[in-house]
């Protein structure tokens, strides 16, 4: 037989086999994802999207799943007005049963009313502003990551324990930055730290020399920064340009690979705090990293990828249990208690907030975010700027 004929027969045989094995048509269910896929924080949005996509793929590959899931992705550009449009679009589409939404706090707080109005159950995967779950008691809104209250408490605690007394605060003027400013100032005041100046800056501001010049005159030991990576990188770089020697103390907004890539050696010694634990230290961290790497996505999961995965997984679990019905999913989510996930046990309180009290302290050491307790700064081998 000629090669071509043999090849044709092989193909026919496979096709016949495939046709003979009954293909079970599962019902298709749509779930949604919203995150900042473009703009300055797109690294986190894309990481979150890939993680949610991973959850859907793994579920679809699971023969025990009752439904076949399709992920609908929308971009909120980290802008509240765009987020409201995206949220309305997603919530109005009745086919979408539930969604994992938002990394940026400014967008998440702008859209809670939309989800409530349309009755779309959502699980926030990255935004830390407390108001998102606590301002209203909307049964639709849940969150798997912690809020900035604990974060800033731990922050103030560590810095005052290290002996720092004077602080300057730079925060962006979105709800995110303002929230950080509010909670950090309160937490610091409780511990006797002194804030010598507070500066609000635009979330896409380029030039900080004016603010930093004034800060230099005030001579604080620590510059606290409540904002996201793009301007965090700029402020730290310009601090160096002006010859300011102080600790750069940030929040979860700068815990990202993009921060270190943007600064190189200047990132050394930056502090930051984040709820949960580093991905590889999470209960399901190794599993998540392995599966993520196997999919060969273009972008890494970044800091909140694991939370996005957990949020989507929780949604899929809920749909599997009660079916693709928004109201039933909302009822089921209200009863989430000690549910297993890759980020540990999830329990929603009466406001839909996961009561995760674990906050991890990070410091940049040799070009990587290292857990504080494991770092040479904690053991005393290295010193932070102006540390006694």
């Amino acid at each position, binding site marked *: 037989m000629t090669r071509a004929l043999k090849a044709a027969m092989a193909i026919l045989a496979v096709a016949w086999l495939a046709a003979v094995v009954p293909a079970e048509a599962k019902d298709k269910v749509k779930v949604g994802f919203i995150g900042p896929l*473009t*703009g*300055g924080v*797109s*690294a986190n949005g894309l990481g979150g999207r890939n993680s949610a996509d991973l959850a859907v793929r793994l579920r679809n590959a699971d023969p025990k799943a009752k439904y076949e899931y399709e992920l609908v992705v929308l971009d909120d550009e980290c802008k509240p007005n765009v987020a409201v449009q995206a949220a309305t679009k997603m919530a109005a589409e009745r086919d979408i049963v539930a969604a994992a939404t938002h990394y940026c706090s400014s967008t998440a707080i702008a859209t809670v009313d939309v989800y409530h109005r349309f009755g779309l159950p959502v699980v926030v995967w990255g935004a830390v502003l407390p108001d998102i779950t606590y301002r209203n008691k909307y049964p639709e809104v849940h969150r798997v990551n912690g809020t900035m209250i604990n974060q800033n408490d731990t922050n103030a605690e560590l810095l005052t324990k290290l002996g720092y007394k004077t602080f300057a605060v730079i925060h962006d*003027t979105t709800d995110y930055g303002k929230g950080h400013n509010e909670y950090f100032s309160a937490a610091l005041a409780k511990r006797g730290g002194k804030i010598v100046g507070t*500066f*609000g*800056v*635009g979330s*896409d501001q*380029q*030039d900080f*020399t*004016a*603010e930093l*010049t*004034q800060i*230099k*005159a005030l001579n604080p030991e620590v510059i606290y920064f409540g904002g996201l*990576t*793009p301007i965090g*990188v*700029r402020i730290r*770089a*310009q601090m160096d*340009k*002006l*010859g300011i020697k102080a600790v750069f103390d940030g929040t979860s907004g700068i815990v990202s690979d*993009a921060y270190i*890539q*943007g*600064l*190189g050696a200047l990132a050394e010694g930056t502090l930051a705090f984040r709820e949960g634990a580093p991905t590889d230290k999470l209960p399901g961290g190794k599993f998540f990293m392995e599966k993520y790497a196997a999919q060969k996505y273009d*972008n890494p999961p970044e800091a909140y990828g694991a939370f996005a995965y957990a949020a989507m997984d929780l949604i899929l679990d809920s749909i599997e249990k009660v079916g693709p019905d928004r109201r039933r999913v909302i009822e089921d989510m209200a009863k989430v208690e000690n549910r297993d996930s890759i980020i540990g046990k999830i329990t929603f309180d009466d406001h839909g907030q996961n009561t995760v009290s674990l906050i991890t302290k990070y410091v940049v050491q040799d070009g990587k975010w290292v857990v504080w307790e494991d770092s040479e700064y904690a053991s005393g081998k290295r010193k932070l700027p102006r540390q006694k």
Partner: protein
Amino acid sequence: MDIGLLAQHVMNGLMVGMMYALVAVGFTLFFGVLDVIQFAHGDVLTVGAFTALVTFLGVRAAGVGSGPILLSAMVVVSIFAVAALGMLIARYLVLPLRTAPALNTLLITLMLGTVLRESVRLFYPQGANPKPFPALLPTNSINIGNFNLRLDNTIMLAAGVMVIIGVELLLNRTKLGLAIRAVAQDEETARTMGINFLAIVLVAFAIGSGLAAFAGIMNGFYYNEVNFGMGLYLGVIGFAAAIIGGLGSIYGAILGGFLFAALQTVGTVALPFGSAYKDVFAFAVIIIFMAWRPTGLIQEKISERV
């Protein structure tokens, strides 16, 4: 406020003002020569900065480690590449639209600006993130009280001044400059006198865009960072500066650039609720200014035959 702090503020203002002035000169050149607002100018600056970055990475990867060579390569390649881009924009986008209402050109160049910006974001690997720009200028600095005088800032300021003086000399002392001014004044007569209109327009756009590239590189060295959105803000401010200075006048553009920077600095220092509102303050003053002097500080001299 102590003198060191004041000096630092003034220095910051001068640096930023220089960059605004360079962008404003471009706008004013384009308007002077063709009566068009080329709104992609800010994003052309971004392309310039990224071209310099790519050149740096490329030349360094080819094994060259010497600072001065890298610096000159970056500057030369970026300026020529962006001048070429400016010429392309002039030839294929702006000139064909000369007979259309000026608003159309403004809109089209605005859209082109978005295309350039988003292309940088999409095609540069991880373009959405800010990129570190190499620090090739010497970073020695002297601390005089509260004032940190840096050598690289001084070098950049001096270079900026020389570039502006160079442009001014080019326009006022050379035949090419004479031709540009002639075309700016009266296109038809200039053509009648034998001036190659197309060539002059292309040269004017090349000069303006080259200045933008220089401003982009300065920006990169000053902040040690470039990002895809850097041109948008600078473009708007450069445009506003060109308008206050008087569209069509080079001195006006320079004046406008430094004036805007001064307003921003005053806003940061003097306002109690500070720096978040410095742009609001600066633009508000500009609005009042334009209501008082709509044609700008240094008006373009036009004569009309009646």
